[in-house]
């Protein structure tokens, strides 16, 4: 079992363990959004879980590294924090900050990271840019909030895991990228009503259950 140092604390983890997971399991918090065990290759898209590993020039995302003996890891160097704070500020700059009315309030990963990194929820300096569509109501049971979504992609993965094929997908590109239900011909083949896996995994409350099916039928 590899033994290594994270922030001067000695940690042991099984061969092949992802560094991020090893740290989280040992109560060393590294901000992260898109990491989920089982996503292979890891999506590495949120760009939050940077750490400094001795011998590497630049900070690396800890979800891409497997633990090695004698590795020396630092989770809070200025370079790491700079990248994490910028990434978080970018995410918040396109986020509709309305925590009071959001079902993820208090369990939201963005709130957690903002507190941890000491970044205000409405960061100064960056203009706020929101997408035009506030709510995508096209799914019979779910509502999708593009201005809450951080595009971590975990919902796509868990849906595929549970249903063999995913009812959710990325669509559009650049700033306009969203999660959508495009491409799924018949949603009735998915047991969305009793599943909720995507809702449960969402770190920010971008997917929520419609209040009733009637609402859709109206």
């Amino acid at each position, binding site marked *: 079992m590899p033994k290594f140092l994270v922030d001067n604390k000695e940690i042991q983890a099984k061969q092949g363990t992802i560094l991020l997971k090893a740290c989280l399991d040992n109560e060393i918090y590294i901000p992260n959004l898109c990491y989920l065990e089982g996503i292979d290759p890891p999506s590495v898209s949120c760009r939050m879980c940077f750490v400094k590993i001795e011998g590497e020039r630049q900070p690396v995302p800890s979800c891409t590294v497997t633990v090695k003996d004698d590795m020396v890891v630092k989770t809070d160097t200025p370079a790491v924090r700079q990248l994490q704070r*910028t990434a978080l500020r*970018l995410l918040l700059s396109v986020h509709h900050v309305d925590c009071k009315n959001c079902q993820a309030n208090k369990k939201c990963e963005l709130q957690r990271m903002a507190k941890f990194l000491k970044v205000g929820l409405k960061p100064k300096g960056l203009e706020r840019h929101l997408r035009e569509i506030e709510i995508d109501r096209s799914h019979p049971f779910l509502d999708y909030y593009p201005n809450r979504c951080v595009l971590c992609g975990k919902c796509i993965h868990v849906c595929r895991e549970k249903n063999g094929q995913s009812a959710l997908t990325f669509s559009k590109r650049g700033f306009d990228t969203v999660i959508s239900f495009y491409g799924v011909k018949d949603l009735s083949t998915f047991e969305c009503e009793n599943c909720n896996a995507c809702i449960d995994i969402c770190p920010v409350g971008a997917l929520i259950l419609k209040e009733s099916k009637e609402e859709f039928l109206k």
Partner: protein
Amino acid sequence: MNPAGNEKIDQIFNAVYKEAERRRSEFREDPVPKIHIGMATCGIASGALETQKAFQEALDEYNIEARIHTVGCLGHCYAEPVVIIDHPDSGFPPIFYHEVNAGKAKMLTKLFLKEGDPRFEHVYGAMEENDLIPSVMEFARFNREKRVVMEKCGYIDPEDIYDYIAEGGYSTLVKALKLNPYEIIKEVQNSGLRGRGGAGFPTGRKWELAKGSGEQEKIVICNADEGDPGAYMDRTILESNPHQVIEGMAICAYAVGAKKAIIYVRAEYPLAVNIVTKAIRQATELGLLGKSVLGSSFDLEIDVFRGSGAFVCGEETALIRSIEGYRGMPRHRPPYPVQKGLWNQSTVINNVKTLASVSPILDHGADWYREIGTENTPGTAIFSVVGNVVHAGLVEIPMGVSLRTLIFDICGGIPDNKKFKAVQIGGPSGGCLNEDFLDTPIDFDSLTEAGAMMGSGGMVVMDEDTCMVEVSRYFLDFTQNESCGKCTFCRIGTYHLLKILERLTKGEGQDGDLELLETLSKDIKVGSLCGLGKTAPNPVLTSIKYFRDEYEAHIYEKRCPALMCRPMIAFYFDLDLCARGCDACATCCPVEAVFTTSNRKKGVDQELCVKCGECIVACPPEYDAVRKVSPPDRVPHIEKPPEKEKEE
């Protein structure tokens, strides 16, 4: 390979080569005139199809026997449609004619082919040394080039495999098949060939990694997903000499142990797709591809995969995802494609130009290749030089030539007596360099050091009328549109850059914008997932570095020094130059913003003017009275006479 096997390879190939030679000598010895017309996309866009039709009709009309030979592109885009006429009976050498439209084609058929007069006023140059007509080799645009990859481009018919074989094509494959794969890899390594897709990774090293990755079958991919604005080298090569690329792929596949290869080409290149598909079919029919290549134990199947036009699919991991049928999104590297690529197999991905360099290297040897170019970057570079330059087009030069030589000597400098301002190298991921860099040698390392990059070879030359803030905005608009949206820095970071630049070009810059652009850019470069995001801020960073005063003028003075950003400029007429009674500008103004002053000269109603610039075009050059000024409040006030009551 055993000697008996080698004999069989020679036997099969010799039969093919003999047929090619027979066809060529039949063509060459035919005493009738030959008309070679450049028919790649660039030629066709300039009207080569009409030129071909006009030649055909004129030949029929005057009852002249001649052969029309359609060839690819010579790279002289400024001169398209290009025609070379070889008329042995006239006593003249083969002659290069430029801009041959349908009318010129008819005229040349009558006067040159029928009456023997080559019409000197239309001649560009002779294709060989002679006493009558200056040779094209006397022009820098020809004699300063060094053609390795494009050597046969524009001389052979890309749709006829025998044309290529008669020129020595596929003989290197024959040579390769008799070598041990490791010998080939060693030779490519010794040549110092570096990937021409942009990053400059040593090609031999890549092949070695693939070869050493295990016994399982490998895959070779030719990356022809060329997407940089203004870059079209790969398209031209595929359209002009597809077989050199295919031969390179076959050698690579044999060396690394692949039975399957794919050419990933954009669907927006329909002609390239057609020509490459046809080339693969012809090569397969002759036994140069397919099962048991030339009777050896090596099998190779090449497919063409059409990309759907996403720029990010030029990134190798996104390209792989796209072939696998998923949304083209890059993934984290490592693992690199040579370790785990398409369908989890070891995959070698090389650019078109890289693969096209392979056959000349094996043919002439690694030492020959090393003598071209610089120590760290041997070989040639192909640039598509576009923008404000006289002789735009494709230029193949030895690495290490300076930007000044390329832009001013070879490509003829800046048109209309304008001053050089900047050159953008490496497409949207590259940087803008100013005149201080004109003596920089062109190779991977010195360009990267300067903050630009080799990229795939796009080069946009800009004159003094170009606003660098606007150029940055243009490139960021491109990258933001083409970002796949996966990672935070690229998706949101470049969007912020774009929005700030948009504000600057509208005259809405604020204190702190410049600093924000810089810090955001630096974080995006480090934080992004793939090469697209990592390089997207380069145009911003380099233009701030080398043209900081322009940014400052936009932000603090609301002034566009190049007089390009419309919200920050105003038009007026210089009354000393404006001709009394002339109405050229007034009649063309789409919004009737031009009025006549009390002494019958012109003024601009700034409320109405939309700054389209039509009046500049309309104003006769002998007056040249239209002026632009920035910021707009510096425009001189010209009294508008009260409107006359219309008579009923």
